[in-house]
């Protein structure tokens, strides 16, 4: 092991590799800061550029884009209120209000440090526990997956805002939206009504951009009109104090570690990933907080939880890929493809046959986390200049970026029509005080829930297996506890809201 580790480090710490990694980090941060431009797209675009590189240099460059991407989503989430990637949805809940309260620098600095610690924790766990954690993840059958999704769905209960019914409505609407298109088991077309647009279902990214970006931008225009409070999107204040933010981030050690562990675990479960981890980490932080009522208004705990949670999935996702050859997400699948291009077989023998490469990848994760930190700390002042850009520029430019993001995903013109439709619908929902985050969660979790429910019952028609298999039972109990706590909390909050 030591020999492989040193050999990997020897190959990694060369000028060309470190240079391409640095470029990868910068590209990942910038790409994810653009709404609609996902980490997956950035990785896919990087792949052809790595064909001529050595295997470790190629994969290290792609890992740099990957880790940079998780931090980049923070920028548009905090400064525009639009999640740059699905994994930064929860970051908008508190980072954006914090920025609107006149502290954009604090929001970004907290996010940068939280992202760094999340990536650091995940890289350390990856190095120590990759093989045993992978074995736990692979033991999850369809029953456990379904129960895990049920548990994840209970997050909706804490994202519902003022009305539990409205939150449930949008969450279930998300589940329904995910059923449109080809049935995941039989391939039967469902609710497509012979429209080409619906043949492959609603593309998740288009729904995400439409729901969050279009409705958010229209609210911005509305606010500008009603408040007449300056032309800027958020109050111009480029104060960026990284050391203060570091102290503040470290003042929530439990939140930081818990959120990072949630990220690592969710990342290690194939099919889950950063888009779920940030919401789950946020939810757990809110439940554990002494001041949950401050969440959603610019609470630092919310920013820390979401950003450390999503960044930690980068290491977690590599666990099943390295130990078992199972990609945890689309990004991991592209990383696998890049190794296969170099003739490296993926599977349990990877660590035995190419130990230097695997340990080189582990070290590349660590190095990328440090590089992202340095790049972000030096470039955030530049990004904060976004606060000086007037709304009259930001709103149309971001709308154009949304159109590009929606189109470039599948090169389909119909996707931009869908973007408009979903955007208008999202605007109507937000005008009527419907929370939009549960809808996104429903769209993400819907296909996983349905596939595993049907797979479980196809294997054995006995429903009781959901309750008799220990891990499944534990997850279901956790889900019930989670709902009971959320309802209790909701009922307690209502009388206090009425008295104030």
């Amino acid at each position: 092991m030591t020999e492989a580790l040193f050999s990997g480090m020897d190959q990694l710490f060369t000028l060309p590799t470190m240079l391409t990694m640095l470029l990868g980090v910068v590209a990942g941060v910038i790409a994810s800061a653009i709404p609609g431009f996902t980490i997956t797209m950035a990785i896919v675009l990087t792949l052809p550029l790595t064909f001529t590189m050595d295997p470790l240099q190629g994969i290290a460059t792609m890992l740099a884009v990957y880790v940079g991407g998780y931090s980049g989503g923070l920028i548009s989430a905090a400064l525009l209120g639009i999640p740059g990637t699905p994994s930064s949805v929860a970051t908008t809940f508190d980072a954006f209000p914090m920025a609107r309260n006149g502290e954009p620098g604090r929001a970004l600095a907290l996010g940068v440090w939280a992202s760094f610690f999340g990536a650091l924790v995940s890289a350390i766990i990856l190095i120590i526990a990759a093989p045993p954690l992978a074995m736990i993840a692979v033991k999850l059958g369809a029953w456990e997956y379904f129960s895990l999704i049920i548990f994840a769905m209970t997050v909706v209960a804490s994202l519902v805002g003022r009305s539990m019914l409205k939150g449930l409505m949008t969450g279930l609407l998300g589940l329904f939206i995910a059923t449109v298109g080809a049935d995941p088991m039989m391939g039967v077309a469902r609710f497509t009504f012979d429209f080409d647009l619906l043949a492959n279902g609603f593309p998740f990214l288009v729904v995400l951009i439409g729901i969050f970006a279009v409705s958010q931008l229209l609210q911005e225009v509305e606010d500008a009109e009603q408040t007449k409070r300056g032309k800027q999107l958020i109050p111009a204040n480029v104060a960026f104090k990284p050391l203060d933010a570091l102290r503040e981030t470290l003042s929530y050690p439990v939140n930081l570690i818990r959120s990072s562990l949630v990220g690592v675990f969710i990342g290690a479960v194939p099919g889950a990933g950063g888009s779920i981890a940030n919401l789950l980490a946020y939810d757990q932080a809110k439940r554990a907080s002494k001041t949950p009522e401050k969440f959603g208004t610019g609470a630092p705990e919310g920013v820390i939880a979401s950003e450390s949670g999503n960044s930690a999935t980068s290491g977690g996702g590599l666990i099943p890929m390295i130990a078992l050859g199972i990609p945890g997400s689309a990004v991991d699948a592209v990383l696998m493809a890049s190794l296969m291009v170099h003739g490296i077989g993926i599977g349990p023998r990877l660590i035995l046959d190419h130990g230097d490469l695997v340990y080189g990848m582990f070290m590349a994760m660590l190095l990328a986390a440090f590089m992202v930190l340095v790049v972000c700390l030096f470039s955030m002042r530049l990004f904060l200049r976004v606060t000086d850009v007037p709304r009259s520029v930001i709103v149309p430019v971001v709308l154009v970026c949304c159109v590009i993001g929606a189109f470039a995903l599948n090169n389909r013109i119909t996707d931009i029509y869908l973007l408009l439709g979903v955007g208008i619908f999202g605007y109507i929902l937000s005008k009527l005080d419907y929370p939009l985050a549960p809808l996104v969660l429903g769209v993400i979790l819907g296909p996983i829930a349905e596939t595993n429910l049907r797979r479980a019952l196809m294997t054995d028609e006995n429903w009781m297996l959901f309750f008799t298999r220990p891990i499944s039972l534990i997850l279901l109990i956790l889900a019930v506890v989670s709902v009971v706590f959320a309802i209790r909390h909701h009922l307690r909050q209502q009388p206090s809201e009425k008295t104030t």
Partner: protein
Amino acid sequence: MSSQAPSQQTRSSGRVADTNARRANALAHLVLNGILAALFVALFVHAGALPSSAWEPLGSGSFPRLVLAVLILINLAIMIHEWRRYRTEKAAAPGLVKRWLWRHRLAFGVLALFALYIAGVPALGFRLASLLFLALAQLMLGVRRPRSLAIAAVIAVTFSFGIDWLFRDVFIISLPRGPFS
């Protein structure tokens, strides 16, 4: 410093100030949830016709039907709640809709322009449609002074022709061309 975002403060204070809007808000809920409930009932019936499988106890339609059934119930529950609210609130003062539309004129204007832009992308191509959208939207949002107009023109060209070049020549992704490319 306030603990709430300025926009939230404005929205909530606006809500309190315009008590007339509560009845209209309840009516809007009744209309939206009524339409959604009817749509979900139709989809529930449609899902019943989806094929089942000999290999699994749940067919294609079971999971969507389960979700749709709960959605119908929730929509009905919201409608009952809003109907009660509608009956207890006082009637809105005349001209409420007109005032509301006037207050949202800029948002609706941008939305209409965005819809035209999306419709124009296949017809004019990405470059030209984006150029026109960016120029007109910036004008609509209040760019008036000569220096701002010059900056707006640079932004419009950069984010239409510049972005198109970046995607076509660097990322090898072709954005919609249109007849003038």
